[in-house]
Protein backbone atom coordinates (compact mmCIF):
# COMPACT_ATOMS: atom_id res chain seq x y z
CA UNK A 1 0.00 0.00 0.00
CA UNK A 2 2.76 2.27 1.02
CA UNK A 3 4.84 1.35 -2.02
CA UNK A 4 1.81 1.76 -4.28
CA UNK A 5 1.27 5.29 -3.11
CA UNK A 6 4.99 5.93 -3.41
CA UNK A 7 4.86 4.77 -7.02
CA UNK A 8 1.80 6.90 -7.58
CA UNK A 9 3.59 9.88 -6.07
CA UNK A 10 6.59 9.29 -8.29
CA UNK A 11 4.34 8.93 -11.30
CA UNK A 12 2.53 12.14 -10.50
CA UNK A 13 5.84 13.87 -9.99
CA UNK A 14 7.16 12.53 -13.32
CA UNK A 15 4.01 13.66 -15.11
CA UNK A 16 4.28 17.04 -13.47
CA UNK A 17 7.94 17.27 -14.45
CA UNK A 18 7.06 16.45 -18.05
CA UNK A 19 4.37 19.09 -18.00
CA UNK A 20 6.75 21.64 -16.53
CA UNK A 21 9.34 20.70 -19.13
CA UNK A 22 6.76 21.17 -21.86
CA UNK A 23 5.84 24.54 -20.45
CA UNK A 24 9.37 25.70 -19.95
CA UNK A 25 10.87 24.31 -23.06
CA UNK A 26 8.21 23.45 -25.63
CA UNK A 27 10.86 23.22 -28.35
CA UNK A 28 12.74 20.47 -26.52
CA UNK A 29 9.48 18.74 -25.67
CA UNK A 30 8.21 18.66 -29.25
CA UNK A 31 11.60 17.56 -30.50
CA UNK A 32 11.52 14.64 -28.07
CA UNK A 33 8.05 13.67 -29.28
CA UNK A 34 9.10 13.82 -32.93
CA UNK A 35 12.13 11.72 -32.10
CA UNK A 36 9.94 9.03 -30.59
CA UNK A 37 7.69 9.27 -33.66
CA UNK A 38 10.75 8.66 -35.80
CA UNK A 39 11.72 5.64 -33.75
CA UNK A 40 8.19 4.27 -34.02
CA UNK A 41 8.14 4.80 -37.78
CA UNK A 42 11.55 3.21 -38.04
CA UNK A 43 10.39 0.10 -36.22
CA UNK A 44 7.41 -0.24 -38.57
CA UNK A 45 9.52 0.46 -41.64
CA UNK A 46 11.88 -2.37 -40.75
CA UNK A 47 8.94 -4.79 -40.84
CA UNK A 48 7.50 -3.35 -44.05
CA UNK A 49 10.90 -3.63 -45.72
CA UNK A 50 11.33 -7.18 -44.46
CA UNK A 51 14.31 -6.34 -42.27
CA UNK A 52 12.49 -7.40 -39.11
CA UNK A 53 9.73 -9.96 -38.44
CA UNK A 54 6.18 -8.70 -37.92
CA UNK A 55 5.57 -8.10 -34.24
CA UNK A 56 2.09 -6.95 -33.18
CA UNK A 57 3.43 -5.68 -29.86
CA UNK A 58 5.78 -3.33 -31.71
CA UNK A 59 3.17 -2.01 -34.12
CA UNK A 60 0.73 -1.48 -31.28
CA UNK A 61 3.30 0.48 -29.35
CA UNK A 62 4.24 2.48 -32.43
CA UNK A 63 0.69 3.56 -33.20
CA UNK A 64 0.20 4.40 -29.52
CA UNK A 65 3.31 6.60 -29.77
CA UNK A 66 1.86 8.47 -32.75
CA UNK A 67 -1.47 8.89 -30.98
CA UNK A 68 0.23 10.21 -27.88
CA UNK A 69 2.32 12.67 -29.88
CA UNK A 70 -0.74 13.81 -31.82
CA UNK A 71 -2.47 14.61 -28.55
CA UNK A 72 0.44 16.49 -27.02
CA UNK A 73 1.95 18.34 -29.97
CA UNK A 74 -0.69 21.03 -30.57
CA UNK A 75 -0.03 22.59 -27.15
CA UNK A 76 3.70 22.82 -27.76
CA UNK A 77 3.70 25.73 -30.19
CA UNK A 78 3.11 28.82 -28.06
CA UNK A 79 3.92 32.19 -29.66
CA UNK A 80 7.22 32.41 -27.77
CA UNK A 81 8.56 29.22 -29.33
CA UNK A 82 8.93 30.33 -32.92
CA UNK A 83 12.71 30.45 -32.82
CA UNK A 84 15.54 29.02 -30.78
CA UNK A 85 16.73 25.58 -29.76
CA UNK A 86 17.62 24.79 -33.36
CA UNK A 87 13.96 24.43 -34.12
CA UNK A 88 12.96 23.33 -37.60
CA UNK A 89 9.40 24.56 -37.12
CA UNK A 90 8.32 26.77 -40.02
CA UNK A 91 6.88 30.26 -39.35
CA UNK A 92 3.90 29.10 -41.38
CA UNK A 93 2.72 27.09 -38.35
CA UNK A 94 1.74 30.29 -36.57
CA UNK A 95 0.16 31.73 -39.70
CA UNK A 96 -2.03 28.70 -40.16
CA UNK A 97 -2.46 27.31 -36.65
CA UNK A 98 -5.96 25.95 -37.29
CA UNK A 99 -4.79 23.77 -40.18
CA UNK A 100 -1.68 22.77 -38.27
CA UNK A 101 -3.72 21.59 -35.28
CA UNK A 102 -6.28 19.86 -37.48
CA UNK A 103 -3.48 17.77 -38.93
CA UNK A 104 -2.64 16.43 -35.48
CA UNK A 105 -6.29 15.56 -34.90
CA UNK A 106 -6.19 13.60 -38.14
CA UNK A 107 -2.90 11.96 -37.17
CA UNK A 108 -4.43 10.81 -33.88
CA UNK A 109 -7.55 9.47 -35.57
CA UNK A 110 -5.52 7.71 -38.24
CA UNK A 111 -3.18 6.17 -35.68
CA UNK A 112 -6.14 4.78 -33.76
CA UNK A 113 -7.73 3.41 -36.93
CA UNK A 114 -4.44 1.91 -38.10
CA UNK A 115 -3.98 0.22 -34.75
CA UNK A 116 -7.29 -1.62 -35.08
CA UNK A 117 -6.78 -2.47 -38.75
CA UNK A 118 -3.26 -3.88 -38.53
CA UNK A 119 -3.44 -7.61 -37.84
CA UNK A 120 -0.48 -8.97 -39.77
CA UNK A 121 2.29 -7.97 -42.14
CA UNK A 122 -0.04 -7.69 -45.13
CA UNK A 123 -2.44 -5.34 -43.40
CA UNK A 124 0.51 -3.30 -42.09
CA UNK A 125 1.88 -3.00 -45.63
CA UNK A 126 -1.56 -1.89 -46.79
CA UNK A 127 -2.10 0.64 -44.03
CA UNK A 128 1.32 2.19 -43.46
CA UNK A 129 1.98 4.03 -46.76
CA UNK A 130 -1.27 5.99 -46.44
CA UNK A 131 -0.68 6.59 -42.76
CA UNK A 132 2.81 7.90 -43.50
CA UNK A 133 1.35 10.61 -45.73
CA UNK A 134 0.47 12.37 -42.48
CA UNK A 135 4.18 12.70 -41.78
CA UNK A 136 5.27 13.94 -45.20
CA UNK A 137 2.22 16.15 -45.65
CA UNK A 138 2.96 18.06 -42.48
CA UNK A 139 6.72 18.24 -43.05
CA UNK A 140 6.09 19.67 -46.51
CA UNK A 141 4.38 22.75 -45.13
CA UNK A 142 5.49 23.15 -41.58
CA UNK A 143 9.07 22.04 -41.25
CA UNK A 144 12.12 23.85 -42.54
CA UNK A 145 15.37 21.97 -42.65
CA UNK A 146 18.44 24.12 -42.40
CA UNK A 147 20.48 21.86 -44.63
Amino acid at each position, binding site marked *: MKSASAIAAVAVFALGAAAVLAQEDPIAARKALMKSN*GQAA*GAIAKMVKGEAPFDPAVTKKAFATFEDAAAKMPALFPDNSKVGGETTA*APKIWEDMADFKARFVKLGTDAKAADTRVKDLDSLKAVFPDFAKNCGGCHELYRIKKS
Partner: protein
Amino acid sequence: MDLMVSRLIVAAAFVVLLGSAAFWFLTIPETVPASALGPHAPNLTNGKEMFYAGGCASCHAVPKQEDKTRLGGGLALGSPFGTFYVPNISSDPKDGIGDWSEAQFVTAMVKGTSPTGEHLFPAFPYTSYQRMSLDDLRDLFAYLKTLPPIMGKIRDHDVPFPFNIRRTLGIWKLLFLDGKPFKPDTTQSAQWNRGAYLVNGPGHCVECHSPRNVLGAIKSGKRFAGGPSPDGQGGTPNITQQKLKDWSVKDIADTLTTGMTPDADFVGGAMVEVVRNTSQLTPADREAMATYIKTLPAVEGSASKK
Protein backbone atom coordinates in the same frame (compact mmCIF):
# COMPACT_ATOMS: atom_id res chain seq x y z
CA MET B 1 42.91 70.72 -79.30
CA ASP B 2 39.41 70.75 -80.72
CA LEU B 3 40.52 68.21 -83.21
CA MET B 4 41.86 66.04 -80.41
CA VAL B 5 38.56 66.16 -78.53
CA SER B 6 36.48 65.31 -81.56
CA ARG B 7 38.82 62.47 -82.40
CA LEU B 8 38.39 61.12 -78.87
CA ILE B 9 34.63 61.40 -79.16
CA VAL B 10 34.66 59.54 -82.44
CA ALA B 11 36.88 56.88 -80.96
CA ALA B 12 34.66 56.53 -77.88
CA ALA B 13 31.56 56.33 -80.04
CA PHE B 14 33.25 53.68 -82.11
CA VAL B 15 34.08 51.63 -79.01
CA VAL B 16 30.52 51.93 -77.70
CA LEU B 17 29.15 50.95 -81.09
CA LEU B 18 31.49 48.00 -81.32
CA GLY B 19 30.63 46.99 -77.77
CA SER B 20 26.92 47.24 -78.45
CA ALA B 21 27.28 45.24 -81.63
CA ALA B 22 29.27 42.59 -79.80
CA PHE B 23 26.70 42.54 -77.01
CA TRP B 24 23.90 42.31 -79.53
CA PHE B 25 25.62 39.55 -81.41
CA LEU B 26 26.62 37.56 -78.31
CA THR B 27 23.19 37.71 -76.73
CA ILE B 28 21.08 36.60 -79.69
CA PRO B 29 18.71 33.98 -78.27
CA GLU B 30 19.53 30.62 -79.81
CA THR B 31 16.90 28.31 -81.25
CA VAL B 32 16.63 24.74 -82.46
CA PRO B 33 15.25 24.75 -86.02
CA ALA B 34 12.47 22.36 -87.00
CA SER B 35 14.87 20.95 -89.59
CA ALA B 36 17.06 19.62 -86.76
CA LEU B 37 14.26 17.27 -85.76
CA GLY B 38 13.95 14.15 -87.87
CA PRO B 39 10.93 11.88 -88.08
CA HIS B 40 9.67 10.72 -84.68
CA ALA B 41 6.80 8.55 -83.48
CA PRO B 42 5.95 9.84 -79.98
CA ASN B 43 6.04 7.32 -77.16
CA LEU B 44 3.54 8.54 -74.58
CA THR B 45 4.61 6.04 -71.94
CA ASN B 46 8.12 7.40 -72.11
CA GLY B 47 6.73 10.94 -72.22
CA LYS B 48 4.93 10.29 -68.95
CA GLU B 49 8.10 8.86 -67.40
CA MET B 50 9.93 12.05 -68.44
CA PHE B 51 7.10 14.16 -67.01
CA TYR B 52 7.58 12.56 -63.60
CA ALA B 53 11.36 12.48 -63.85
CA GLY B 54 11.32 16.16 -64.79
CA GLY B 55 8.98 17.12 -61.99
CA CYS B 56 7.17 19.59 -64.28
CA ALA B 57 4.14 19.53 -62.02
CA SER B 58 6.11 20.61 -58.95
CA CYS B 59 6.30 24.12 -60.32
CA HIS B 60 3.73 24.28 -63.11
CA ALA B 61 0.68 22.61 -61.51
CA VAL B 62 -1.94 25.05 -60.27
CA PRO B 63 -1.06 25.52 -56.57
CA LYS B 64 -3.21 24.18 -53.75
CA GLN B 65 -5.04 21.47 -55.61
CA GLU B 66 -4.68 17.72 -55.72
CA ASP B 67 -4.71 17.20 -59.49
CA LYS B 68 -1.09 17.62 -60.57
CA THR B 69 -1.86 17.30 -64.27
CA ARG B 70 -3.52 20.72 -64.37
CA LEU B 71 -0.48 22.72 -65.47
CA GLY B 72 -2.00 26.18 -65.35
CA GLY B 73 0.95 27.64 -63.44
CA GLY B 74 0.77 30.58 -61.05
CA LEU B 75 3.12 29.46 -58.28
CA ALA B 76 5.24 32.34 -56.96
CA LEU B 77 8.92 31.42 -56.78
CA GLY B 78 10.95 33.72 -54.57
CA SER B 79 14.60 34.38 -55.40
CA PRO B 80 17.33 36.97 -54.72
CA PHE B 81 16.53 38.45 -58.15
CA GLY B 82 12.82 38.92 -57.65
CA THR B 83 9.69 36.81 -57.74
CA PHE B 84 9.02 34.53 -60.67
CA TYR B 85 5.46 33.53 -61.51
CA VAL B 86 5.45 30.09 -63.05
CA PRO B 87 3.81 30.15 -66.47
CA ASN B 88 0.92 28.11 -67.78
CA ILE B 89 2.26 25.10 -69.73
CA SER B 90 -1.08 23.34 -70.10
CA SER B 91 -2.30 22.31 -73.52
CA ASP B 92 -4.46 25.42 -73.80
CA PRO B 93 -3.61 26.96 -77.20
CA LYS B 94 -4.03 30.54 -76.07
CA ASP B 95 -2.70 30.65 -72.51
CA GLY B 96 -0.61 27.46 -72.42
CA ILE B 97 1.69 25.73 -74.90
CA GLY B 98 -1.04 24.10 -76.98
CA ASP B 99 -0.06 25.88 -80.17
CA TRP B 100 3.70 25.54 -79.75
CA SER B 101 5.56 23.55 -82.35
CA GLU B 102 7.83 20.71 -81.35
CA ALA B 103 10.86 22.81 -82.30
CA GLN B 104 9.65 25.66 -80.10
CA PHE B 105 9.28 23.29 -77.15
CA VAL B 106 12.71 21.76 -77.69
CA THR B 107 14.16 25.26 -78.03
CA ALA B 108 12.69 26.31 -74.68
CA MET B 109 13.97 23.17 -72.97
CA VAL B 110 17.54 23.14 -74.26
CA LYS B 111 18.22 26.76 -75.29
CA GLY B 112 16.02 28.56 -72.78
CA THR B 113 14.47 30.63 -75.55
CA SER B 114 10.74 31.33 -75.80
CA PRO B 115 8.73 31.01 -79.03
CA THR B 116 8.78 34.81 -79.32
CA GLY B 117 12.58 34.71 -79.30
CA GLU B 118 13.13 35.97 -75.77
CA HIS B 119 15.58 34.57 -73.26
CA LEU B 120 13.78 32.64 -70.52
CA PHE B 121 14.95 33.12 -66.95
CA PRO B 122 17.04 30.21 -65.65
CA ALA B 123 14.56 29.75 -62.81
CA PHE B 124 13.29 27.39 -65.48
CA PRO B 125 16.10 24.81 -65.23
CA TYR B 126 17.11 24.52 -68.88
CA THR B 127 20.70 24.27 -67.61
CA SER B 128 19.72 20.69 -66.72
CA TYR B 129 17.08 20.03 -69.38
CA GLN B 130 19.65 20.77 -72.10
CA ARG B 131 21.13 17.33 -71.28
CA MET B 132 17.95 15.55 -72.34
CA SER B 133 17.81 13.56 -75.56
CA LEU B 134 15.71 14.88 -78.43
CA ASP B 135 13.56 11.74 -78.35
CA ASP B 136 12.79 12.18 -74.66
CA LEU B 137 11.98 15.85 -75.16
CA ARG B 138 9.63 15.10 -78.03
CA ASP B 139 7.92 12.31 -76.09
CA LEU B 140 7.50 14.67 -73.15
CA PHE B 141 5.97 17.32 -75.41
CA ALA B 142 3.55 14.75 -76.84
CA TYR B 143 2.57 13.70 -73.31
CA LEU B 144 2.08 17.29 -72.10
CA LYS B 145 -0.33 17.80 -74.98
CA THR B 146 -2.53 15.00 -73.62
CA LEU B 147 -3.02 16.86 -70.31
CA PRO B 148 -6.04 19.14 -69.79
CA PRO B 149 -6.05 22.69 -71.18
CA ILE B 150 -6.26 25.32 -68.44
CA MET B 151 -7.31 28.85 -69.27
CA GLY B 152 -5.65 31.89 -67.80
CA LYS B 153 -2.41 33.69 -68.53
CA ILE B 154 -0.10 34.07 -65.57
CA ARG B 155 1.08 37.55 -64.61
CA ASP B 156 4.55 38.81 -65.53
CA HIS B 157 7.53 38.11 -63.30
CA ASP B 158 8.26 40.67 -60.65
CA VAL B 159 11.97 41.06 -61.35
CA PRO B 160 13.47 44.51 -60.84
CA PHE B 161 16.08 46.28 -62.96
CA PRO B 162 18.63 45.26 -64.18
CA PHE B 163 17.60 41.61 -64.13
CA ASN B 164 14.45 42.41 -66.08
CA ILE B 165 16.49 43.16 -69.21
CA ARG B 166 16.20 39.76 -70.77
CA ARG B 167 18.88 40.36 -73.33
CA THR B 168 21.48 40.30 -70.54
CA LEU B 169 20.55 36.67 -69.97
CA GLY B 170 22.41 36.01 -73.20
CA ILE B 171 25.62 36.78 -71.34
CA TRP B 172 24.51 34.58 -68.46
CA LYS B 173 23.96 31.76 -70.92
CA LEU B 174 27.40 32.28 -72.46
CA LEU B 175 28.83 31.76 -69.01
CA PHE B 176 26.61 29.02 -67.65
CA LEU B 177 24.78 27.20 -70.46
CA ASP B 178 27.22 24.92 -72.23
CA GLY B 179 24.75 23.46 -74.74
CA LYS B 180 26.05 19.93 -74.31
CA PRO B 181 23.75 16.91 -74.33
CA PHE B 182 24.29 14.14 -71.80
CA LYS B 183 27.45 12.18 -72.46
CA PRO B 184 27.54 8.65 -71.09
CA ASP B 185 30.59 7.45 -69.17
CA THR B 186 31.61 4.26 -70.94
CA THR B 187 33.55 3.03 -67.92
CA GLN B 188 30.31 2.82 -65.94
CA SER B 189 27.35 0.44 -66.16
CA ALA B 190 24.25 1.11 -68.26
CA GLN B 191 22.27 1.44 -65.03
CA TRP B 192 24.66 4.08 -63.67
CA ASN B 193 24.48 6.00 -66.93
CA ARG B 194 20.69 5.87 -66.93
CA GLY B 195 20.77 7.26 -63.40
CA ALA B 196 23.29 9.96 -64.30
CA TYR B 197 21.08 10.97 -67.20
CA LEU B 198 17.91 11.11 -65.09
CA VAL B 199 19.57 12.98 -62.23
CA ASN B 200 21.47 15.53 -64.35
CA GLY B 201 18.96 15.88 -67.17
CA PRO B 202 15.23 15.74 -66.52
CA GLY B 203 15.54 15.27 -62.74
CA HIS B 204 17.51 18.53 -62.37
CA CYS B 205 18.35 17.53 -58.77
CA VAL B 206 21.44 19.73 -58.76
CA GLU B 207 19.36 22.88 -59.29
CA CYS B 208 18.13 22.82 -55.69
CA HIS B 209 20.84 20.69 -54.06
CA SER B 210 23.66 23.18 -54.73
CA PRO B 211 24.69 26.64 -53.58
CA ARG B 212 24.57 29.46 -56.13
CA ASN B 213 26.89 32.37 -56.85
CA VAL B 214 25.99 36.07 -57.02
CA LEU B 215 24.81 35.63 -60.60
CA GLY B 216 22.46 32.87 -59.54
CA ALA B 217 24.47 30.11 -61.17
CA ILE B 218 25.48 26.91 -59.41
CA LYS B 219 28.91 27.14 -57.79
CA SER B 220 31.05 24.74 -59.73
CA GLY B 221 32.78 22.30 -57.43
CA LYS B 222 29.83 22.44 -55.04
CA ARG B 223 27.36 20.53 -57.16
CA PHE B 224 25.01 18.36 -55.06
CA ALA B 225 26.60 19.70 -51.85
CA GLY B 226 23.34 21.30 -50.71
CA GLY B 227 22.67 24.96 -50.17
CA PRO B 228 20.32 27.60 -48.94
CA SER B 229 16.87 27.60 -50.45
CA PRO B 230 16.50 30.37 -53.09
CA ASP B 231 13.45 31.75 -51.31
CA GLY B 232 15.50 32.20 -48.16
CA GLN B 233 13.62 29.65 -46.08
CA GLY B 234 15.81 26.80 -44.91
CA GLY B 235 17.91 24.84 -47.33
CA THR B 236 18.56 21.58 -49.10
CA PRO B 237 20.81 18.83 -47.79
CA ASN B 238 24.13 17.73 -49.22
CA ILE B 239 23.44 14.58 -51.27
CA THR B 240 27.05 13.72 -52.02
CA GLN B 241 28.72 10.94 -50.08
CA GLN B 242 29.76 13.56 -47.55
CA LYS B 243 26.26 13.33 -46.11
CA LEU B 244 24.88 10.09 -47.58
CA LYS B 245 27.78 7.74 -46.89
CA ASP B 246 25.67 5.67 -44.52
CA TRP B 247 22.86 5.36 -47.04
CA SER B 248 22.73 2.29 -49.26
CA VAL B 249 21.55 2.45 -52.87
CA LYS B 250 18.34 0.86 -51.64
CA ASP B 251 17.96 3.53 -48.94
CA ILE B 252 18.15 6.25 -51.59
CA ALA B 253 15.72 4.45 -53.89
CA ASP B 254 13.33 3.85 -50.96
CA THR B 255 13.43 7.54 -50.03
CA LEU B 256 12.52 8.44 -53.62
CA THR B 257 9.62 5.96 -53.37
CA THR B 258 8.10 6.63 -49.96
CA GLY B 259 9.67 9.85 -48.73
CA MET B 260 10.98 8.02 -45.68
CA THR B 261 14.71 8.26 -45.02
CA PRO B 262 16.71 5.35 -43.55
CA ASP B 263 16.55 6.96 -40.10
CA ALA B 264 12.74 6.92 -40.43
CA ASP B 265 12.40 10.65 -40.86
CA PHE B 266 10.17 11.92 -43.63
CA VAL B 267 11.44 14.38 -46.21
CA GLY B 268 9.86 17.81 -46.00
CA GLY B 269 9.47 21.01 -47.94
CA ALA B 270 9.70 20.88 -51.71
CA MET B 271 11.14 17.35 -51.54
CA VAL B 272 7.66 16.04 -50.69
CA GLU B 273 6.54 17.19 -54.13
CA VAL B 274 9.64 15.66 -55.68
CA VAL B 275 8.86 12.29 -54.11
CA ARG B 276 5.28 12.57 -55.32
CA ASN B 277 6.85 12.54 -58.79
CA THR B 278 9.68 10.07 -58.32
CA SER B 279 7.28 7.59 -56.70
CA GLN B 280 5.56 7.43 -60.12
CA LEU B 281 8.73 6.37 -61.94
CA THR B 282 9.52 2.76 -62.75
CA PRO B 283 11.43 1.03 -59.93
CA ALA B 284 14.27 0.49 -62.42
CA ASP B 285 14.62 4.24 -63.00
CA ARG B 286 14.60 4.99 -59.27
CA GLU B 287 17.27 2.35 -58.69
CA ALA B 288 19.33 3.83 -61.51
CA MET B 289 19.11 7.30 -59.95
CA ALA B 290 20.05 5.88 -56.55
CA THR B 291 22.97 3.97 -58.07
CA TYR B 292 24.32 7.18 -59.57
CA ILE B 293 23.70 9.34 -56.50
CA LYS B 294 25.52 6.79 -54.34
CA THR B 295 28.66 7.45 -56.42
CA LEU B 296 28.68 11.25 -56.06
CA PRO B 297 32.11 12.03 -54.55
CA ALA B 298 32.03 13.60 -51.10
CA VAL B 299 31.98 17.40 -51.30
CA GLU B 300 32.02 19.62 -48.26
CA GLY B 301 28.86 21.72 -48.17
CA SER B 302 29.32 25.46 -48.20
CA ALA B 303 26.70 25.97 -45.50
CA SER B 304 28.35 25.34 -42.17
CA LYS B 305 25.02 24.77 -40.43
CA LYS B 306 24.25 21.20 -39.47
